[in-house]
């Protein structure tokens, strides 16, 4: 357990040392979400219709940005093989690492979501559901992104493989997240998609670290 805490704290320390890396997804997210109103006329009712998708796809792309670097640095400097050689259970260390990444890259997105939702013309209820859907959905994005990153970090010719891998894995979260906000915006019941998001969260956070650790072990062989 102390090992997981040590890994978690180290991620935060590294982010503090390199603030530009950490801030990049957040800036990207803001740009994406705020450029849309410029593309569509600001008072166009279509903006409200597209707002859930804009915010959710923005969150997905921003998460994708940060994911590539999660394990790359550690593989390069040899930290990864030491972590996998250590006593602590690898899935736990992976979960600690991804949890720290969620805190650093996704939580700011969740906090920024209400502002963006209002800027895009959503009603208060829809804004609340948007924030909740992002809170439930971004850990899924982070953990599935981490799994895909673990698969590609050991590949020598990965190229643009990471987005292709990530797309089918992240699609359900985006579908349910966007669906929940759309339902709330139209006055329809929105619990079902939120429950699905929570189920995805439970599944990915508990099971994916095992697969991720396995893929990492494969990468250092």
């Amino acid at each position, binding site marked *: 357990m*102390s*090992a997981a*805490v*040590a*890994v978690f*704290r*180290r991620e935060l*320390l*590294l982010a503090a*040392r*390199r603030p530009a890396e950490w801030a990049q997804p957040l800036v990207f997210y803001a740009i994406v979400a705020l450029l849309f109103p410029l593309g569509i006329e600001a008072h166009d009712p279509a903006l409200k219709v597209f707002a859930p998708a804009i915010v959710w796809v923005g969150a997905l792309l921003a998460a994708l940005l940060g994911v590539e670097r999660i394990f790359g*640095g*550690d593989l*390069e*400097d*040899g*930290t990864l*093989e*030491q*972590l*996998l*050689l*250590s*006593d*602590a259970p690898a899935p736990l260390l992976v979960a600690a690492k991804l949890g720290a990444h969620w805190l650093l890259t996704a939580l700011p997105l969740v906090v920024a979501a209400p502002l963006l939702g209002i800027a895009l013309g959503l009603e208060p209820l829809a804004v609340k559901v948007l924030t909740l859907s992002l809170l439930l959905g971004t850990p899924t994005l982070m953990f599935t992104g981490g799994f895909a990153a673990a698969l590609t970090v050991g590949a020598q010719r990965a190229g643009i493989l990471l987005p292709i891998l990530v797309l089918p894995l992240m699609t359900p979260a985006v579908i349910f997240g966007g669906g929940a906000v759309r339902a709330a915006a139209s006055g329809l019941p929105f619990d079902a998609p939120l429950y699905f998001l929570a189920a995805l969260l439970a599944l990915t956070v508990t099971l994916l670290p095992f697969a991720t650790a396995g893929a990492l072990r494969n990468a*250092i*062989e």
Partner: protein
Amino acid sequence: MPIPSLQVSNLAVARGDRNVVEALGFAVAAGEILHIRGRNGAGKTSLLEVLCGLRLPAAGRIEGQPDAEQRHWLGHKNALNPALSPDENLRFWCALSGHAEADVGDALQRVGLKAQRHRPCGNLSTGQRRRAALARLLALPRPWWFLDEPLAGLDHAGIDLLAALLETHARNGGAALVTSHQPLPQGLAGVRTLELRP
């Protein structure tokens, strides 16, 4: 109590699709330093990785393999994050195994990095980074050392330092397996050589 010896019988090690090592048998006991030598591509690193437990062998048996808390692996890479200082890096490795961080300063001093201990590793020279990696072996005392090409990147003083560390380690009952295509420093006691031919 002396550590149990590491025994290898009929070991085969694969790299990619081929076996680079076949039907290998030997033993390493406490106080011994095994120097695994051979040309580039002979399979030294792959063999060491299998012995340490990073990978599985293709065939054969390893008995007495130390578990995680009993071994150190020093590979080609130093396991030092360039954004953090040697001090911070070592403290992390101590915290990871639940070991007290008290020996970190001492270890860095013994390898001659007292002045640089708070500078980011990215700003240190290759030799200094290698020394910082060696300091990890001192900050966390463990009986088994698996060192892959430890002489690479070290100057004369660094090589002497490594020889001294190995000597002390063996004298205290530890064991070390070292791969190197260069010969180890002269005068190092307790060294056996294992030659790998491709």
